């Protein structure tokens, strides 16, 4: 059977497929989608370059990013995109694995479907197998003790490092895994992701990237007079505003009627007065650094410069929120009644040159519940991919911190689950046995792909692994760097168990759904135009068939 086209909607005639044929054509479509990300898995995975319709190039090896950009239209293929997204949402990493799992599950049961096994039987066995696998992961997972600070830290670093090893930052993974853990450790107990700002500056070396435990943002657009302002403070008070510090009409729909010139002059003065009152009130509060979400005009800039204050307008709201989180204070929408209580503070404020850009740094903050990663790198695409990799690492650290259990990566957990399920399958009679064995076989797709991507002989290595696992060495996985197998738990290749649990659940859920469809009803696009309805359906003349 010809594989269904995936980037097109439906080839004509595809609509008539139903029953077994449809299931199989859907399975084939999923294989094609999975092939697109297959080679990105693992430390030796390759990146993909995608160019969108605007000519913008994206280089990535993140499964979710690739799947999103693929723009799959095939309904079954779409489900794989969905589960990649879901994995991204729930865990943040393992997006390639989840797609591979789903595709492999389907591939393994394709034969059964062809032989006429009822999809519901397969679905039921899959659910059972997933349940068993998840329980097994929970049982195998090694708990992290939260009270042991140093221990916890090293676990987190290893999890981050495992993630990064399969990404662009593989070579610098020690450096960046430390950075990711540091960043997450700064946050409060909700671990809000948006409190980690990521700034990208092209140029410089990878290792020039730095973590600011505080906030940093690019110098805002400034007016004349800015040069006169001091650029460095120790322990300044910071006022965070949502006020436009410019001459402006007080009220949109206000109208002024005056009778004489003196009165007119007074009005003009009053407008200036309003602005000066605001500035004065800010100055009186003792603030040294003035940040606003809205523009700060040239009058205000010069006024502040005269009084040795620093100001910056049009600061993105996210940065301001981070400032609030780390320096304290609250955003003010009114310049009236500015008191010291609403101001924040930090130990050190400085404007510095980073690469080709000026950056404002707020460090040594009293609350430090936010931080900023300043990434450096050669090209724009490179930094973008760096950001995605770090994002994954940060997500993994967050998850590991919330659900404190880890398993060994590098195919070790998959091999162990595969062995467990295979053993289990032998104890049950009926078709379930076959299907659970197929599920077990499908789990081996991760170690196999790791080998294939690294150019190893996968059959050989898998055999060695199977032997090891049969002997009870449950943490043996692939060592990509020595082209052999190793105890990956001892080698500190760790992943949060949640990654695997979620990947298996999502993949099997998607498979069950794809398998359960036996008919496709599709309406042509733009169906709201009037089309002459064909003669009544039915072949007529009152004879069935």
């Amino acid at each position, binding site marked *: 059977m010809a594989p269904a086209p995936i980037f097109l909607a439906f080839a004509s005639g595809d609509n008539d497929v139903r029953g077994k044929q449809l299931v199989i054509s859907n399975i084939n479509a999923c294989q094609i989608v999975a092939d697109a990300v297959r080679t990105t898995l693992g430390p030796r995975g390759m990146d993909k370059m995608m160019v969108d319709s605007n000519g913008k190039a994206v280089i990535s090896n993140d499964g979710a990013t690739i799947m999103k950009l693929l723009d799959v*239209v095939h*309904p079954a293929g*779409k*489900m794989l995109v*969905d589960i990649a997204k*879901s994995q991204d*949402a*729930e865990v*943040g990493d393992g997006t390639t694995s989840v797609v591979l799992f789903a595709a492999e599950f389907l591939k393994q049961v394709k034969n059964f479907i062809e032989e*006429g096994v*009822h*999809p*519901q039987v397969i*679905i039921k066995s899959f*659910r059972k197998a997933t349940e068993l696998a998840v329980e097994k992961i929970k049982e195998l997972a090694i708990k992290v003790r939260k009270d042991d600070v140093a221990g916890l830290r090293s676990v987190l670093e290893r999890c981050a490092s495992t993630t990064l090893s399969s990404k662009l930052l593989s070579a610098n993974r020690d450096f960046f895994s430390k950075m990711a853990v540091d960043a997450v450790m700064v946050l409060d107990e909700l671990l809000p992701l948006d409190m980690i700002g990521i700034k990208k500056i092209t140029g410089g070396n990878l290792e020039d990237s730095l973590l600011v435990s505080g906030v940093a943002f690019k110098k805002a657009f400034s007016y004349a007079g800015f040069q006169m302002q001091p650029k460095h403070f120790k322990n300044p008070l910071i006022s965070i505003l949502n006020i436009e510090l410019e001459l402006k009409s*007080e*009220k949109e*729909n*206000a*109208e*002024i*009627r005056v009778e004489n010139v003196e009165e007119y002059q007074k*009005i003009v003065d*009053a*407008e200036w007065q*309003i602005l000066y009152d605001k500035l004065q009130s800010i100055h009186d509060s003792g603030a040294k650094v003035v940040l606003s979400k809205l523009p700060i005009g040239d009058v205000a800039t010069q006024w502040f410069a005269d009084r040795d204050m620093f100001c910056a307008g049009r600061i993105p709201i996210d940065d301001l929120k981070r400032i*609030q989180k780390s320096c304290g204070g609250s*955003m*003010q*929408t*009114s310049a*009236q009644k500015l008191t010291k209580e609403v101001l924040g503070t930090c130990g050190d404020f400085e404007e510095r040159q980073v690469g080709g850009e000026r950056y404002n740094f707020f460090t040594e903050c009293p609350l430090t519940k936010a931080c900023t990663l300043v990434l450096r790198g050669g090209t724009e695409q490179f930094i973008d991919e760096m950001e995605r990799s770090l994002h994954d690492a940060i997500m993994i650290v967050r998850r590991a911190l919330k659900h404190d259990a880890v398993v060994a990566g590098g195919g070790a957990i998959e091999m162990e689950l595969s062995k467990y399920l295979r053993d289990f399958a032998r104890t049950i*009679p*009926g*078709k379930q046995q076959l299907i659970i064995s197929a599920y077990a076989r499908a789990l081996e797709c991760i170690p196999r792909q790791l080998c294939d991507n690294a150019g190893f002989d996968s059959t050989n290595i898998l055999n060695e692994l199977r032997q090891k696992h049969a002997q009870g060495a449950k943490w043996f996985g692939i060592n990509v760097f020595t082209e052999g197998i190793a105890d990956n738990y001892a080698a500190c290749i760790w992943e949060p168990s949640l990654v695997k649990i*979620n990947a298996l*659940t*999502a993949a099997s*859920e*998607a498979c069950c*759904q794809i398998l359960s*469809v*036996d*008919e496709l*009803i*599709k*309406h*042509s*696009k*733009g*169906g*709201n*135009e009037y089309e*002459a309805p064909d003669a*009544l*359906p*039915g*072949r007529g003349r*009152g004879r*069935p068939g």
Partner: protein
Amino acid sequence: MAMHIGQAPGFSQMLSDGARYYSGLDETVVRSIEAVRELTRIVSTSYGPKGLNKMVVTHLGKMFITNDAATIIKELENEHPAVKLIIMASEMQEREIGDGTNFVLVFAGALLDQAEELLRMGISVPEITDGYELALGKALEFLDEVVCGTVTNVHDREQVQRAIKASITSKQNGTDEFLSKLITDACIALLPEKGKTFSVDNVRVIKIMGSGILASHVMNGMVFKRDIEGDVKKAADAKIAVYSCAVDINQTETKGTVLIKSAEELLQYSNREEDLLEKQIKAIAESGVKVVVSGGKMGDLALHFINKYKLLAVRLMSKFDIRRVANTVGAIVLSTLVPPTADVQGHCDLVYLDEIGDTSVVVFKQEKKEGAISTIVLRGATENSMDDVERAIDDGVNNFKAITKDNRLLPGAGATEVELSRLLTQYADTRPGLEQYAIKKFGAALDTFPKILAENAGVKAVEVLAKLHAAHLEGMKNIGFNIEEDAEAAIDAEKAGILDLYLTKASALRLAVGAAITLLRVNKIVMAKQAGGPKPPKQGAQDEDD
């Protein structure tokens, strides 16, 4: 000159151009039956726990994967008038009971199939319809005899779960146990004292992508996929004010300009405006309220004061949501920004911002046992799977409602149908007229259900049917078809806990027979030419759930 009178034109010439006209048994009834057969062919493979899903892609590109007949037919965009009739019957069932839609379609289809044979035998339409009507009356009588149990206490989790489980099994086989428990928990938690009705709308479902179905849970209170506006992210044991208006500086509806006459006025203008808003929000805070829910926008300035007075502010976009929140917390919705008096304030035990997956949600949680609204937080790997589970939950909740109306239960797994079929066949023999044939065919139509169940499970249908009939003849009236493999094909449905609701079945029978009879009685179809131009957009409900 004599007036020339032309020959009377044929009927079709009297119609305007493009109109189509069919008459006679062949062109109308038989053709309609064929069209209906096409429909039932699609939905019958979705019937029962082993039924498979259909993938429906609408012309907008939205995809449904479901085995819920109501959803499939809604998306079918059918044009055939006869099929429409059957679909209407099924929609009626959806509205009345909320479950059993597929039963209506399949049964109506089966009745028509049988009727076609009768027509071939030369039995006239009135004889068939009379027979069907007679059979229906009898079937409903017999249904009382088939009842195998009742739900004596709708507060009893075990009983309720047992009663709704079969319905969930037929939609989400595999997770049925878990889902029926969720639904039972959600429904019983808000079942009011006796004498009040249970409203389906009070069980909310919120879908959050990620994790798996088994991570879903029930929560007493409401959950919204929104962020909290202000700085306060958590409030415990809080009084709540609910506003339908915006929390902001008052804007006039009428176009107006503020007239400023002197510089002093200009200087004070914005200060006064700020003071006014501050006073309003201060008054709200002073009334003891800790949480403000608004249906309109929250201005920057208002938010500033809300933060200043440490209020938790939530903005909800839908006015239905506003109403539901007010319901949950027991508040009265205020339409102007006035400080709430004690009697319009609501109360909630815990309002907080949470993260499920990576979605921020605002949770209004009530600790007390009986709440006004409960929410099922549904997790799933794909949008489609969550949509489908949501539909199953809907059906389950509707079933619960049906139980509160009528607590009688029937054996499922085709047992009821086989028993009815047996009784009707017996009854037919006592009838002297030609309707005897129709009644027998009615019974045969009922046999379709165990047949479909068996066919969908990949088992030989005829053998199963024979086995079931034999068992029923021996008086084991609860014997149904066992869907599980590697076991006896016959199973005692009552003991296995496969139960259908009396109400669902009775209503489905009535509607299906009604639709089939109406179709049979047609002997002419005139279809006017469809008016050209794009169809007017459908007037959908404002809220997806209403």
